[in-house]
């Protein structure tokens, strides 16, 4: 994608044509210089233009792109940030900054691998990349290599735990999570994951303890309230489950699962009118939209559905480490 920013190694350094004294270059002149690969000229012309028009975002962008093309990424980054400081909704600047972010990430990644190829972070990064490519076996190998180098790495312990949990190896996941919690007793991801792994094994008491721990770290986590409510419900504590599920539903009114489980809890408690109301809500959420909206959609797309294509929960994710 570097082509978008220019060709870092390219750039035929044609001699800069003398700008007429006192004349401000046009943005077209700046762009033409960039497009033909004369990045130094593009920078010079943009700078000249900005001297008279410091707020010209177009010139800032051309200059930043040219800086990136010359491999001066820090200057390019600052250039795009300047544009966004003036115009936070500038889509061009955001686009190029996104591309530049990827280039910078690649550069740092290369540096890390060159500097410390067997470091825990290098293995972690490789593992994350394999995960993104849906190659869990390779990811696990890298995470384990990293953990051998740094047995107390919370990130690697949680990564391995999550990987094992997602593959139904719950006992193994519990082991990793417990190691992480021992090192950091208030680590949300470890506590939450530990609770989920225990829940899958129907070990509700330790699951409840873990979810309560996670909520101690982040009381506003709808997911943790939902998970705790589920564990309480499964362990026969419907009344306690109601409280947690109500909190989850209040935090995330569109969370179908919370409403459904709340309805189940109400049913078990004999609160049938409340259960019926909640199940109506579940039905409405599940169907996704009103009949009128459905009709509109169908009119717009004859093939189209009568309900949202993906009302289901999104995949589990870890918070950034």
């Amino acid at each position, binding site marked *: 994608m570097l082509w978008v920013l220019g060709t870092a190694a390219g750039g035929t350094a044609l001699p800069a044509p003398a700008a007429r004294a006192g004349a401000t270059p046009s943005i077209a002149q700046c762009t033409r210089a960039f497009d033909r690969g004369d990045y130094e000229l593009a920078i010079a012309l943009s700078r000249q233009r900005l001297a008279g028009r410091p707020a010209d975002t177009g010139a800032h962008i051309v200059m930043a792109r040219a800086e990136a093309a010359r491999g001066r990424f820090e200057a390019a980054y600052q250039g795009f940030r300047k544009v966004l400081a003036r115009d936070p909704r500038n889509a061009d600047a955001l686009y190029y900054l996104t591309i530049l972010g990827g280039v910078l990430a690649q550069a740092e990644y290369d540096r890390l691998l060159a500097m410390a190829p067997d470091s825990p972070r290098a293995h972690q990064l490789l593992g994350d990349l394999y995960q993104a490519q849906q190659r869990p*076996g390779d990811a696990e190998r890298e995470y384990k290599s990293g953990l051998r180098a740094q047995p107390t790495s919370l990130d690697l312990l949680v990564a391995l735990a999550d990987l094992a949990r997602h*593959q139904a190896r719950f006992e193994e996941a519990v082991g990793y999570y417990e190691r992480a919690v021992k090192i950091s007793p208030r680590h949300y991801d470890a506590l939450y994951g530990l609770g989920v792994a225990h829940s899958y094994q129907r070990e509700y008491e330790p699951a409840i303890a873990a979810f309560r721990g996670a909520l101690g770290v982040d009381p506003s986590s709808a997911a943790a309230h939902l998970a705790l409510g589920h564990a309480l419900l499964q362990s026969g504590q419907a009344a306690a489950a109601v409280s947690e599920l109500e909190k989850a539903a209040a935090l995330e009114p569109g969370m*179908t699962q919370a409403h459904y489980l709340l309805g189940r809890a109400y049913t078990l408690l004999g609160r049938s009118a409340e259960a019926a109301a909640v*199940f109506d809500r579940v039905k409405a959420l599940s169907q996704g939209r009103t009949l009128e909206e459905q009709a509109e959609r169908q009119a717009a797309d004859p093939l189209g559905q009568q309900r949202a294509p993906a009302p289901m929960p999104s*995949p589990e994710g870890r918070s950034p480490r």
Partner: protein
Amino acid sequence: MSAHHRLAWWAPVLGTLLLGQGTSPPTVSAPPSASAAPGVAFADASPAAGLDRFHHVSGGSAKDYIVEATGSGVALVDYDGDGWLDVYLVNGSTFAALRGAAKPPSAALFHNDRNGTFTDVTRAAGLENGRWGQGVCAGDFDDDGREDLFVTNFGRSRLFRNRGDGTFADVAEAAGVAVDGWSTGCAFGDYDGDGKLDLFVAGYVKLDLERLPPAPPHGSVPPGDAPSASPPPAEVRGMGAAYSAGVPYCEYRSQPVMCGPRGLKGEGDRLFHNDGGGRFTDVSARAGVADGAGLYGFGVAFFDYDDDGRLDLFVANDSTPNYLYRNRGDGTFQDLSYASGAALDEAGREQAHMGVAVGDYDNDGRDDLHVTNFADDYNVLYHNDGKGLFSDVSYPAGVARPSLPFLGWGDAFLDYDNDGWLDLIVGNGHVYPIADQFDWNTSYRQRPLLFRNLAGRFVEVAGSAGSGLSVARSSRGLAAGDLDNDGDVDVVLSNLDETPTLLRNDGGNQAGHWLTVRLVGDPARSCPRDAIGSVVFCTAGGIRRRGEVASGRSHISQSDLRVHFGLGAATRVERLEVRWANGAAVAYDIPAVDRLVTIDQARGIVSASSPSAGR
């Protein structure tokens, strides 16, 4: 918003499952289990039986469109009343055949020759179908003592009336049950207690051949190279690829695949009331089961989950919540899907359900449900807790984890080892042929799963090398029944684009005693002649087992209408009680075990024959 906002805390077990780490891959036979019933095996008897003369056809091999991937059902039904189950295999079709540019493939009726072989009598019987066949269910709708067949199609459905001379006539249009569009599962059942079999038909997707959703480009597309007319719909692991307006193609795990069903318009469901005289009336809306939301229906089961003597209705819906309708007894149904707990999994997630099996697996007297599901999600077992409530007990009961890499279709409860506890068999196969090209720990062809029931908990038992259970196919329909009348239950699988599989049960009749009951209802007492909807309770060895005469179920298939009980070591039946479909409960004295007993509601026990002696 919380920094730890996660809607999907209880997503299915996500990610690719590793080979050999906790789950068995779909193509490889699971390791031998110490829990397997000694001396009992399922042999692949298809070639010897002659069933390999049928070859299923369903569009092209690439499976560019969803209609090519859902497959067809199979029925085990004694069409000629000789006391031996015959085999009817529904066939698919091709787009060329639909356009009239090619000869459509034919369905097949195989007559049971009573010696382990079958003879193709399709043409003589007039059961070719010739449309893009989907499901099949049996029911003697005109109470003439001969089983009729309803066949669902992608296209107009057919009601094959059994003339009683070995031939059938399609009377769907005259009867008022010629359903257009794409129908799948079906079941006969007398929902209003008037003694006549009514008919429920599930609808799947509204698919217009002139406006098909986009087909995938062949060959994988590197990430980032996909055209970007609009962003692809969010992928939901454990479900198929969703269609969204404007997408150039649909994606599953970032690979182009056929679209649907999610995102496509759903087809409604239909309930037809049997008015008598060979006529039916569509009462779907009036009865409250029309499926106005257009959920994607597959497996259908009439069953009396609350034991109030009235047939309730379960519809397994693909990628959407299931329906559970409670029969109010006034000709209408109450939608208790969510309230019952059988609409979603235990965490409140929708699943991509296909086939439904009904049976009392824990011998507590109530019917439970097993529903198959997409790969990367588990097959769900709903335990009937009584008081109208079901609980998802899939994980503790042992059926969830082994099913994760499998994409399940037909399923049936059956006591294959005659130990008195209902076991479970599942036919499997992926919908995406490209599954073989990627490290998804799944495969296009998959072996069946057999679970042995150890007093309420299931353990997967593998077939030894050479067993029919170790053969991987892309299976869809599945039906169970004692094809050779030897006292143990056999299984037939319909395989997509292949020959079928006959799993002959060898040794089940030696592993435990058994009793098979054939019921003949009395229409004069407002009970359907074939007694569909009747429940049989068999007490032996101190255990009370439940069985029933049922139409439809599994994945759009029809199992044996006779009720088979394994009795274990018990050498006598202490009590046999029939709750006839008209509500009358009658107890019968069973003279001996290891018998096929025929009970006529009007005359009592009329025969009790030993193995392989026919009726």
